[in-house]
């Protein structure tokens, strides 16, 4: 069942086309990753899908309601949380939950039940009377998510929810996202972190307002990287990268910490002679550096996206 149906959605600000004719579907209960660089049109798209920004043309059905014709019904069926964790620092945890429950029309025993649930998932049981400003960023983030889904929306939009959070908290937060998605909620999440994108059921990538790829992480890897990827561990990664990028066999070279990911132009079987030739060529480039290792690896999403984006440029 489709939870969100985007059809030829376009938004222009004057001459600037922020979102350019994008179409995609999100299915019920999915964790849907929405990826793109800063200024690629992610926030504009989210604002349109939340019913607070009118599209220039095209439309989207969010939980069955048109964002163009019936944005008020859209608002009732969604939850939203951004990296700013819009909680009131001068109110306690309970008071914040009362407020966010209240503006979605929750009251009485239902409100109490949902509040207990929100406290539980954010790990703040028995801490309802703490001032929100004194919480750590990780707790604030989970509380903000709890507040955003208290009214049990069908879809929750998370706009770069893990910005500025340490890796442990990020991991806990993603556990929470999975928990919510298991309850049947559709999760629509934007992120910068490509390792997080691996947790999504499906992802789309937009660049300069245009959709350039979509599919599950595995599909994307298969579809866009048909050739072999080599990981080269060496000391002077920058110099070697420069040398390799001019070679006939290399399609894309990028640095990942102390290793280089080299995408070749073809797929080679592991022990083929051609691959050995290439490996020898690489060894020549790295010269007398110590600890050089060359391995075939499975491509990561980062490889996919860097490859895709560089092809466009």
């Amino acid at each position: 069942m489709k939870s969100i149906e985007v059809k030829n959605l376009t938004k222009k600000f004057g001459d600037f086309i922020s979102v350019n004719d994008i179409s995609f579907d999100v299915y019920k209960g999915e964790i849907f990753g929405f990826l793109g660089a800063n200024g690629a049109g992610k926030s504009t798209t989210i604002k349109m899908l939340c019913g607070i920004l009118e599209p220039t043309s095209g439309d989207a059905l969010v939980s069955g309601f048109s964002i163009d014709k019936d944005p008020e019904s859209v608002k009732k069926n969604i939850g939203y949380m951004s990296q700013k964790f819009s909680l009131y620092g001068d109110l306690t945890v309970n008071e914040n939950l009362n407020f966010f429950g209240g503006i979605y029309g929750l009251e009485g025993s239902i409100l109490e039940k949902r509040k207990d649930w929100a406290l539980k998932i954010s790990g703040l049981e028995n801490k309802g009377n703490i001032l929100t400003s004194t919480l750590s960023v990780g707790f604030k983030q989970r509380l903000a998510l709890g507040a955003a889904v208290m009214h049990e929306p069908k879809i929750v939009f998370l706009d770069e929810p893990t910005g500025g959070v340490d890796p442990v908290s990020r991991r806990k937060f993603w556990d929470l996202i999975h928990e919510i998605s298991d309850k049947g909620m559709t999760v629509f999440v934007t992120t910068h972190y490509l390792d997080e994108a691996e947790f999504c059921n499906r992802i789309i990538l937009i660049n300069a307002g245009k959709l350039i790829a979509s599919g599950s992480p595995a599909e994307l890897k298969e579809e866009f990287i048909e050739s072999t990827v080599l990981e080269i561990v060496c000391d002077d990664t920058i110099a070697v990268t420069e040398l390799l990028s001019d070679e006939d066999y290399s399609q894309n070279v990028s640095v990942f910490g102390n290793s280089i990911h080299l995408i070749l132009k073809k797929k080679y079987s592991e022990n083929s002679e051609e691959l050995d030739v290439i490996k020898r060529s690489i060894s020549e480039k790295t010269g007398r550096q110590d600890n050089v290792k060359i391995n075939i690896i499975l491509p990561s999403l980062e490889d996919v996206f860097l490859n895709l984006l560089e092809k466009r440029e």
Partner: protein
Amino acid sequence: MFTRIISISVKEFRQIFRDKRSLLIIFLLPVSLLALFGYAISIDVENIKLGVFDKDNSETSRKYLSSLDASSYFTITEHIRKDNDVNELLNNGKIYAAIVIPDNFEKEIQSDKNVKIQYIVDGVDASTAGIVQNYLLAATFQFNGKIVAEELSRKGLKSVSPLNAEMQFWYNKDLDSTLFFIPGLIAMILIIITVILTSISLVREKEFSTIEQIRISPVTSLQLILGKITPYLILSLIIAASILLMGGILFGVEVKGSYMDLFIGTVCYLLATLSMGVFISTIAESQQVAFQISQLISQLPTIILSGFIFPIESMPYFIQLLSNITPSKYFIIILRNILIKGTDLAVFIDQIYFLLIFAAIFIFISAIRIKREQMT
């Protein structure tokens, strides 16, 4: 629908009461402003310091001077001996006016000649000088009458004064100017406090981007405005009551009309000022800017255009038209009617309507502006 408005109001109340220090300021500031302005603003003229240069020093001249000294308006503080001293005393501000009585004062009066008494008045403050002028003229006129009467009776004639003006002052019997200023003061304090508080509280939500979360929720812009206004309406009604109480204790202000009328009038005024605050929040992007615009828009027109100090009737026609932009003008009329005259609602019903229209217009524009902000 009401759950949403109440949630916003409750949240706002909690935030107001959480910050105890600001709360103290919210309550203490109005009361201390009232005391400060109440004592400072007064155009009653009393104990004007006079210097006298009595060149004649006769029985008649002394009688004339003591008649001035006896009134509460004047006190003779200096007796001048030299012409130069007049200059010096006025320059130093030791006296406000000097009276010079010529040397053959008594003789000339007795020989039925016209005598000139010279008054030199410090004219820097035109309005006080004008009042002093009137008092002195009246005192001289009275003394004239006495001399004429004596003169006539000496000649065996009876003096007649066919016209006699008998003055009664209604509403403000003692012509106490403080009582006249109190309504304007209440209006000014309330407008400043309410406009600043509402505009800042809404702009703060913008600054902390908590407004984003409200925009994405099903709360409409009208619900947001009503939810925001309600706590400040209640708070400022309490402030209004405390100002009135303080006015009663310090300046003897009493409510001559009905308390119900007073309540209705105050609520209508507060709705108008609060909606002004909401409107300002839709144009300001930071708390600082909101604060400055609020001060400018609330304070200045109230002092200059509302009839608080300067009577609107004596303004040029164009300025009279301009005076309609401030709700204070209407509230001052309402308050003067209730507090000083004790008239009932029917007399100032037009003012009530105006305040309500004012509030409705500002709420309407703000609601549209908030909605439009969502769209960009």
